[in-house]
């Protein structure tokens, strides 16, 4: 299964990428929301997107709204992975169409359990 990691921090992308690879995922990456839309257009088989909130060009919330505003990628599960930890922001992201929400910092166990909650792999 293929996942899209969207974060402007290369370090975070590398960390998430390593976790997902160890869990058997194929990974593609983007540094902001606009780039992610382009990556997604070339990788329509992505089943999961891990999305940072605060990024240049297009932020994570705008990316979620953009993707959910189309008929494409309806099966793709979206998980925010962000430092934003206000209840109001979590609600905002869920209402925009995110399926799960991880607050940084995180570890492998957190990511694995959240992916399991999305029904994409065993816990």
């Amino acid at each position: 299964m293929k996942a899209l990691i969207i974060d402007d921090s290369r370090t975070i992308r590398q960390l998430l990428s390593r976790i997902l690879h160890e869990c058997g995922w194929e990974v593609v990456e983007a540094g902001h929301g606009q780039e992610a839309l382009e990556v997604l257009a070339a990788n329509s088989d992505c089943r999961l997107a891990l999305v940072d909130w605060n990024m240049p060009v297009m932020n994570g919330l705008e990316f979620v709204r953009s993707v959910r505003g189309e008929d494409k990628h309806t099966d793709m599960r979206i998980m925010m992975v962000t430092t934003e930890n206000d209840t109001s922001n979590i609600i905002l992201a869920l209402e925009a169409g995110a399926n799960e929400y991880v607050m940084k910092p995180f570890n492998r166990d957190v990511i694995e359990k959240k992916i399991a909650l999305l029904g994409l792999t065993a816990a």
Partner: protein
Amino acid sequence: MTISPGDFDYISKLVVERSAIVLEPGKEYLVESRMRSLLQETHCPSIRELVQKMVREPNGDLKNKVVDAMTTNETSFFRDLHPFEAMKNVVIPDLLKKRESTRQLNLWCGASSRGQEPYSVAMMLLENFPQLTTWKVHYVASDISEKMLARCREGIYSQLEVNRGLPAPLLVKYFDHRATKWQIKDNIRKWVDFKQINLASHWPHLPRMDIVFMRNVLIYFDPPMKKIILGKIRQILKPDGYLFLGAAETTLNLDDAFQRMDIKQSGCYRLREGQAHPSREPASV
């Protein structure tokens, strides 16, 4: 940090005396790992010094702290997922039909630890079966450690703890954000009756249970104690009640009265016909 054979022997004897949890040789790593934060908390430079302090002050609180540290286990919200799916899809719908006349449900979560397990059950129930708020639900959650029970009653979790296994929609619905922590809302906290119960000792009065959650507890006991505990559960479980054990636990060769249900990796058991305890409401067990 390494533990000497003598100090391991002292701690394992203390733990078995006070909790019946057996620390077999080979578990030295576990003691070392669990003592790490306690050494910091008590300003002891080594396990050697910790043991000597317990010897010097046999009635001090340090022994309780050591037992607490050894009997408290890492857990997460909705651990293993499958038992919660089984509850949602099979167990609760069945009990709602069978208890429709009394509209009463008794549940016991037998190893609360930091509270994630009992609160996960509570959230699952409220989320999927809101009609239960009008039922008489007696929900007991117990643990051997008073320290852990105090934490459970408080219901405050770190960001990392709420990240682990808790669906985001439930986080925003059932928790209040307080600075860097998250506290479970009063309506859930007040629903759960937290009690101190040492499974290896005398149990207080408990009503006949519809569901017993006893996951990932039996693994810490030796086979004779496992048999005793399962026997006691048999006495308090209603004939058509349900028992949940951890994924690595079984009643096989311990108590034949229980039959594993064929629900995907749920660790769900029921009593075989005619195996329930005859008394309707035991005074104590």
